């Protein structure tokens, strides 16, 4: 569990439009890496290339390499479905399966991966919900629909669903942008706990959030609207927010643009 991600020379396209250009970076295992940058800079697109979700968008195409430890996710013969079972994802808007109960939502990924005994399943669901700090709030209504929870609870349900299958990496695409401050705090605390077990990559628009939760921060930018996004720099979060090596980073974090 928890593997290193090693990206080299990665570009992503929507049809003929190049969305991100030639990105290389390393993400250490058991750490939180935050992606920040202005809208349209390609940070979400880049995140979605890390579990091969980018290519499910019509016209989506990727060039370059993503190594998970030593295995290239874009190597010949690699099944994208298998990749997504190893690299979990949490989305911007909480998206529990509306037709499933809370229990079934958490068990959904497990049921895809194979058959489990009922007791085993119940155990993993409980462990995952505890891992997502949701167990105490839902343990008496596991058979109720997941869509009946509050937004913050739904998002933690989605995190429980993602960690239930014990992924190597957890990708989070602006997981708190649809949530109120208290729910956001709950998710941020949770991220701090989850990094003991998983490699976490989080896209965020909120620079304070990046500063609070991440060990490393990557700043993305684009030279003009319609131009591909680029990685400007990646460094320890402390350095990015106190003494970045590129002027554009400092301009962005100090609020001079973006």
């Amino acid at each position, binding site marked *: 569990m928890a593997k290193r991600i090693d990206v080299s020379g990665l570009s992503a396209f929507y049809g003929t439009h190049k969305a991100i250009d030639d990105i290389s970076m390393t993400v250490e295992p058991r750490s939180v890496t935050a992606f920040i940058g202005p809208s349209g800079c390609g940070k979400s697109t880049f995140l979605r290339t890390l579990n091969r*979700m980018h290519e499910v968008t019509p016209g989506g195409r990727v060039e370059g390499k993503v190594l998970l430890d030593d295995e290239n996710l874009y190597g010949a013969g690699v099944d994208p479905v298998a990749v997504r079972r190893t690299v979990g994802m949490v989305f911007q808007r909480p*998206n*529990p399966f509306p037709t499933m109960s809370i229990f079934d939502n958490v068990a959904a990924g497990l049921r895809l991966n194979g058959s489990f005994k009922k007791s085993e399943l119940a155990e993993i669901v409980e462990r995952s919900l505890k891992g997502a700090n949701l167990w105490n709030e839902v343990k008496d209504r596991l058979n109720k629909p997941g869509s009946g929870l509050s937004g913050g609870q739904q998002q933690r349900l989605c995190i429980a669903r993602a960690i239930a299958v014990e992924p190597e990496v957890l990708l989070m695409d602006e997981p708190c942008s649809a949530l109120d401050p208290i729910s956001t705090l709950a998710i941020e605390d949770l991220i701090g706990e989850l990094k003991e077990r998983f490699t976490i990559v989080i896209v965020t628009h909120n620079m304070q959030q990046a500063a609070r939760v991440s060990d490393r921060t990557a700043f993305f930018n684009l030279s003009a609207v319609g131009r591909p996004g680029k990685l400007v720099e990646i460094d320890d979060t402390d350095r990015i927010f106190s003494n970045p090596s590129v002027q554009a980073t400092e301009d962005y974090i100090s609020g001079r643009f973006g």
Partner: protein
Amino acid sequence: MASTTPTQIDQAPPVSKSARSTGRAGDKIFAGLSKGSGILLLVIMASIAIFLTYRASIALSKNEGNFLTTFDWNASATPPVFGIAVLLFGTVISSIIAMAIAVPIAVGIALFISHYAPRKLAAPLAYVVDLLAAVPSIIYGIWGALFLVPQLAGLNLWLDEYMGWTYVFDKTQAGVARSLFTVGILLAIMILPIVTSVSREVFLQVPRMNEEAALALGATRWEVIRMSVLPFGRSGVISASMLGLGRALGETMAVATVLSPSFLINGHILDPGGGTFAQNIAAKFDEANEFGRDALIASGLVLFLLTLLVNGAARLIIARRKDFSGANA
């Protein structure tokens, strides 16, 4: 989710006086029109029900046979003896066959159009399916009688030979396939377009984020459909099927053209014979006297009630799992 809250509505800037007054007149006209349409619908339904009940009661009061169990239709005899047993059986059986064939195929076509077919193929295919709905039912009837009936001889033989042990597919009478089974197949083709297009629309409504949730867990395309698309579309498919069933129950000309009617209940669905409500009315209405027509209207009333019953049952099925429908997501 993040919908407009009441406070935001309260804070809306005041509308200028002239805009408000025209808005009010428009509001009133529109509210009146939609209320009127709603009332009109109820009036039409009520007048149909009253008409059917009144005329039916005249016939039923003079009927010497048991209306529900008699296997005969002699409304012009003295004393008149008629019953709906055969018609009810034929209507229900042919509709069940039609649904059993049409719904799975329609869901398959709808999924293919919405989730599998390349965009260039999906649009023309959807158009062709919709075109099927524009064929008048008498054309289906003629096609059924002249083409489908002879073509089904082989299938009937095969079913009789290998599935005959099921009783249902045991063909006990010789003769061409003017049977409830053939009617069922024909009805299936006729209801296919409506079930397909409504299902397709519902499948296209599945929120992208629900499908991505399944994809991100490592679901294959079929698993995405099973986890996200089908559960979300479930109530829509049921509604679509009910629309199709309504058409199958009431279909008249196609059935009347294909079926060779008889007043027997025969569980061997490959045997010729049987009848349906609508087919029986069409066949007898012209020659019936005033009383005979009342008797036929009584059978029409039963069809009306049957449709109400089926629709009510479908609503119950949908309502039972409302919390899980996805409508509150």
